[in-house]
């Protein structure tokens, strides 16, 4: 196996972040399985871990591990792109431990203290921000996130300022600054629920369908430049056009959340038209990835990273694009709003777009951080298996939830008279919920396979680099 040394020593802080991210990912999936089972065995773990607590842990871990993955990616990518050492590696290390400790304390708070007590202990009466979906964090955690984010952005921005400025770093920086800026709306909680919901979406939608897409584009472009050797000029043009489409459609696409929460009726038109176009940037991303891989000027030894990157583009299109589109037009959303269809879309979109891009980055960077250009062939084979097992597991879950959603709408929403009640409908969906749990178990197996790939060494026959390996499976 060809050895590789880091171009810049300070890139090594990324390793810490990647390991932390993967550990939290495992936690997220364990709690996800618990939730899937609670759908079927309603009193499972009650009252020790009620559904709402497990769900908070599941979704908050998702957000934290993805943010940690983004940060690690930035620490790896920015020095290399800027061609200079990180402004302060020490600050990056300190922030990691602060972030991890604060995250762990918050999760323990959810699990050990009743939520109302937690709210009271942490000053929620001074500035009420808790108890809103995904923004359940206590006030000190929210303030901590802001402090960590600002210090991180300072570190990254200073590095870019003193070095070379590329399209990738500029787009990444815009995405990260936008992410931090939109998070400030998590402190806005008007007593009017309608207004509260509108500003809440400024964080939630403008993250995942706005600023995060810039980060996604930048990370994908970076992995593709490195693994295909295609000209930067070509990749830069694609990157700009993709993120242009992402923001052009995504900003007014916020309107698809404004249909039925008490905002004016014109949002039904604005939201329908612009969110119908939201698959376009994801479709372009798929074209981009395949196009770059076809035009590749070298066979990079790390074919697993190429698979994750292409997989990210394809699954992102399916999850965020296609599964979003099926319920995004307001006459359709009138029936699907708040049903299991939303859950199906949410799972595939987060997995396809953000989970896979972070893993693509980890897959590319981690071998180099461990002192080799790519992992041994056997390890890569296991890693590629893990991609397929996780992706098929996710597909099973998403199809099951889609089936559950369609039946739910049919029984509970469509009838104008004699519609079935919520809990009676849920009883009819048990088959789909069991299939979802099966998909979740498969996903966990895929994740464990992925973890195992880190511990696989080279085979006896393998002392030459896999540089001539052909692109498989992708």
């Amino acid at each position, binding site marked *: 196996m060809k050895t590789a040394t880091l171009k810049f020593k300070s890139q090594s802080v990324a390793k810490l972040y990647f390991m932390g991210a993967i550990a939290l990912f495992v936690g997220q999936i364990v709690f996800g399985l618990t939730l899937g089972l609670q759908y079927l065995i309603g009193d499972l773990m009650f009252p020790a871990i009620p559904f709402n607590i497990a769900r908070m842990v599941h979704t908050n871990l998702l957000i934290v591990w993805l943010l940690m993955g983004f940060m690690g990616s930035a620490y790896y990518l920015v020095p290399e792109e800027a061609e200079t050492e990180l402004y302060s590696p020490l600050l990056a290390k300190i922030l990691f431990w602060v972030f991890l400790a604060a995250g762990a304390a918050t999760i323990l708070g959810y699990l050990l203290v009743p939520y109302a007590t937690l709210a009271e202990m942490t000053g929620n009466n001074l500035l009420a921000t808790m*108890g809103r979906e995904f923004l*359940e964090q206590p006030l000190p955690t929210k303030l901590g996130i802001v402090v960590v984010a600002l210090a991180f952005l300072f570190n990254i921005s200073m590095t870019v300022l003193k070095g070379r400025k590329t399209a990738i770093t500029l787009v990444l920086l815009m995405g990260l600054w936008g992410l931090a800026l939109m998070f400030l709306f998590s402190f806005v909680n008007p007593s009017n629920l309608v207004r509260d919901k*509108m500003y809440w979406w400024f964080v939630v939608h403008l993250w995942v369908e706005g600023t995060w897409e810039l980060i996604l584009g930048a990370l994908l472009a970076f992995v593709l430049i490195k693994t295909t050797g295609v000209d930067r000029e070509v990749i830069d043009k694609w990157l700009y*056009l993709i993120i242009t489409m992402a923001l052009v459609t995504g900003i007014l696409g916020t309107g698809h959340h404004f249909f*039925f929460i008490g905002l004016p009726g014109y949002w039904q038109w604005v939201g329908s038209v612009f969110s119908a176009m939201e698959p376009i940037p994801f479709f372009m991303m798929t074209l981009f990835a395949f196009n770059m891989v076809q035009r590749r000027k070298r066979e990079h030894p790390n074919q697993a990273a190429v698979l994750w990157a292409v997989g990210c583009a394809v699954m992102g299109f399916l999850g965020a694009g296609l599964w979003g589109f099926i319920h995004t037009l307001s006459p359709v959303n009138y029936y699907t709003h708040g049903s299991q269809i939303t859950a199906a879309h949410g799972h595939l979109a987060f997995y396809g777009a953000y989970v896979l891009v972070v893993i693509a980055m980890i897959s590319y960077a981690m071998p180099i951080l461990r002192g080799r250009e790519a992992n041994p062939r056997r390890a890569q084979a296991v890693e590629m298996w893990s991609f397929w097992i996780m992706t098929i597991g996710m597909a099973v879950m998403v199809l099951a939830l889609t089936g559950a959603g369609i039946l739910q709408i049919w029984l509970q*929403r469509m009838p104008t008279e004699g519609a079935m009640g919520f*809990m009676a409908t849920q009883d009819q969906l048990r088959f789909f919920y069991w299939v979802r749990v099966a998909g979740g178990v498969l996903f966990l197996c895929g994740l464990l396979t992925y973890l195992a790939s880190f511990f696989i060494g080279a085979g006896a026959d393998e002392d030459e680099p896999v540089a001539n390996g052909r692109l498989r499976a992708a």
Partner: protein
Amino acid sequence: MSRGFTSQMARNIFYGGSLFFVLLFAVLIFDTEQRIPQRSKSAEITPAVVRGKHIWETRNCIGCHTLLGEGAYFAPELGNVYTRRGPDFIKAWIKAQPTGAPGRRQMPNFHLDDKQLDDLVEFLKWTNGVDTEKWPPNIEG
């Protein structure tokens, strides 16, 4: 992509296009803000409604229920529960939790006193009055 099209041009399209849509979004939000009071009947937000919202949030009700279609999908929609069940049922139901029926989804008991229950009901009553463009399609939510 054609040779004449440079990455500088692509970058300028990005800046111009994004800025235009950010401004357009800001204009729409400004207009929406003006209409929220009438659409949500904000004049009817009493101190009890505000306290009720606080209870709703600090018990993390959204972690199981949906409210106007947003939240978790584990328990019923509560945006229209005021017309579906009425105030007395809501209070009695909350007090009777958890049901303890084996295998059934359980709701914790939050030990709310009568005043807190009234506040929560006031919040749900006000929410029920929001103009949601006739959503949900039927009483079952």
